[in-house]
């Protein structure tokens, strides 16, 4: 069963949330998921772009009250 790790990057500006996510994704197993919380609108768009570029899987992006939740599954 896959595990999900949460990263709270709210308050950080681009490319802070992306860099935090990349550091974390190196530490999890293939098939596991990361949930990144970001209040930076640019990162909510950039993280899915990065995921697509390097070949991981975007599980979903959800807009909450004052932040976005971006869930990524490690694919390789």
């Amino acid at each position, binding site marked *: 069963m896959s595990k999900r790790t949460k990263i709270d990057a709210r*308050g950080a*500006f681009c*490319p802070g949330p*992306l*860099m935090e996510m990349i550091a974390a994704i190196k530490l999890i197993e293939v098939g596991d998921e990361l949930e990144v919380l970001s209040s930076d609108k640019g990162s909510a768009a950039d993280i899915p772009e990065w995921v697509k*570029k*390097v070949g991981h899987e975007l599980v979903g992006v959800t807009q909450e009250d004052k932040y976005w939740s971006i869930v990524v599954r490690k694919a390789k």
Partner: protein
Amino acid sequence: MAGAPLYIVLCSGDHEKLQMAAMMASVGAVSERPVHLFVSMNALFAFDGTAAADQRYKGGQFSKLMREKKAPDAIDLLRQGKELGDLSVYACSMALDVAGWSEDRLVEGLFNGALGLTRFLSDAENGQLVVM
């Protein structure tokens, strides 16, 4: 598959340009694209290892905003790019000579060494060159 290497020549000491160069270098490097950053002219002074961190960046209106909003530090971003991706950082040997600096004067743990422009440009023939 790795993208074409990105070669960035950073000459400006303006905080805004340093920040943009650091963002491009770090994000490029973690996106499976080799990045090579060449630091020269006034940009060198931002990498003075003897300077206080809060005195490092000189800029205009946007620099002030970035400080107020606590945007990521440019040198921290470059360190992350090196740690997480394929990023090399070189100090221009001519700029070091003119400033009278040795490599020891540069911020710790960031530079791969000193390099001449001729070698950097020769390497850059294989990729995309951006000058800031």
